[in-house]
């Protein structure tokens, strides 16, 4: 039984469960555990109106609750049903940066990420999460179509 951890950069798109399915499949085959990371895009350097400032704390609570209910909980349930031990984390910030940070902290050996969005022109100009990870990840990264 391996004690490896695989990180899954999980967007939570119900139309695209491939990355989670594949990660579960690989983790089961190798007896690894999964660490699902869901990142809510946020920057401490963005500009807000005074009303947004007042409401931010409350909105953050709502966003976290929603992310947990709609994204993380069903995904963790799926892992459990498949017999794969899994943990989940919801983080605020820049996706690539946080995935790398969590990978380092957990000592993960592989990153799984969905390919959605990396084909478009915008992705080629502005970058996308899978392309960004492919360039800077310190561990093997699997881009799941």
């Amino acid at each position, binding site marked *: 039984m391996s004690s490896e951890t695989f990180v899954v950069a999980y967007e939570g798109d119900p139309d695209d469960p491939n990355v989670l399915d594949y990660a579960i499949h690989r983790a089961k085959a190798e007896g690894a555990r999964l660490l699902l990371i869901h990142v809510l895009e*946020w920057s401490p350097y963005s*500009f807000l109106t*005074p009303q947004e*400032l*007042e409401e*931010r*704390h409350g909105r953050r609570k709502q966003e976290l609750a929603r992310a947990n209910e709609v994204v993380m909980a069903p995904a963790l349930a799926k892992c459990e049903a498949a017999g794969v031990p899994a943990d989940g984390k919801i983080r605020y910030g820049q996706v690539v940066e946080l995935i790398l940070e969590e990978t380092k902290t957990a000592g993960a050996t592989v990153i799984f990420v969905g390919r959605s969005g990396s084909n478009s022109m915008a992705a080629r100009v502005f970058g996308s999460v899978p392309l960004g990870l492919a360039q800077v990840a310190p561990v093997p990264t699997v881009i799941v179509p």
Partner: protein
Amino acid sequence: MFDRKAFPLAAGFALSGAAAQAQTIDETINSVVGAATGPFVSFIFSPFPGTSFPWIVLWLVIAATIFTIYFAFVQFRSFPHSIALVSGKYSDPNDAGEVSHFQALATALSGTVGLGNIAGVAVAVSIGGPGATFWMILAGLMGMASKFTECTLGVKFRNEYPDGTVSGGPMYYLSKGMAVRGFGGLGKGLAILFAIFCVLGSLGGGNMFQANQAHAQIVNIVGDYPGWITGVIFAAIVFAVIVGGLKSIAQVTEKIVPFMGVLYVGTALIVLLINYDRIGWAFGEVFDGAFTGAGVAGGFVGALIQGFKRAAFSNEAGVGSAAIAHSAVKTKEPITEGFVSLLEPFIDTVVICTMTALVIIITGVLQVDPETGNYLWNAELGRVETVGDVSGVALTSAAFGSALSWFPYILAIAVILFAFSTMISWSYYGLKAWTYMFGEGKAQELSFKILFCVFVVIGAAMNLGPVIDFSDAAIFAMALVNIFGLYFLMPIVKAELNSYNARLKSGEIKRFA
């Protein structure tokens, strides 16, 4: 039968008749509102007995000096720490997604950086001469301590509601904070009084002045037309944002304004560089005028008064408004927001206002008597003679235009955006004060928002003189109440400061980056 050729002629007559009538709408608004606000303005700006010095300016200056000394020149000693806080070095990663120090600072700045930095400075320099710049910078530096005090209290005595919203500011720290010090009744009274003046301030400086000078710059570009037309258009857009909830306009404005600010300062630097051979002379004018008045009526006292007035109006140190924005930040240490907020008067006054003043001085739009070297004084208008006989934002525009002929067009866009962002921020501050007095509720909110939009029209229609007088008076009235309370509450801030500094030194305050 109706002659088709006569139609354009008839339309022309009708329009010119309407325009003539429209002029009198502006004049009517000007005389009515000017008369109504006159007594209030006279009281606030009445001189100290035996002098010509407005007592309210003395009040602000003494407060800033006392806070500077009481907190041992915190604005200079803690400046590097303020920068570290804003860049997130002490921000807990677990707090990601909450209001960051940078966001609180940026929001407060978008409320303070407005037409005061562009037009108000032009008024100050044309009345007080170049020496007003020196006193303005000094007031900005000392005002950092006032802002430090009030924003610390804003976080310390804020209300956090079950639904997650946060409300803070002078109404709360005056009522709750004074109660802690044993002056609950007085505190409540001060809080109500502050709320009244905050509403007036939001209608004056945060609204009328902005609309007025935005219209003035548009007129500068496209030609004269009645102010109430600009007012109605602006009011409609402001209405769409604050009543209609059309957040996209507010969000776009908030994002563009910082870039316009950087563009404005950058362009000012270019103008200074174009006139690099006069930079030394310009600074000489500033220092010379600061202590001798350089031939300006009122002498150096006039320069001092104008400098302090404009600094206070522009950076709102001691006024209490920024404490409302800063109170939403996520932090366990209220004093950290004090550190962050002291950067505001620096950015607003010492950087942006000074840039405006130097551009006006260096480009020579203030007329000089070639024989005496003194500035030509227009006694009737009560200010220095200017090229094109302009004042306010038109003077700033002329100054930039003399070096970069296309800049007045960019300035017009910048002015409109600055005006909007200030109006959006101040409509919020005024609303907070209004609901503090009359309670939360859809009817109360709507009534204030409609009132606010009406004043957009009034401000655009009036002349600069009565608008700036009322705007100044309302803002200073807020400072009158706020600073009175700050004197009682400053020991609380000192305790926070000492505790934080001790824990920072011992390493108990964690650094995350």
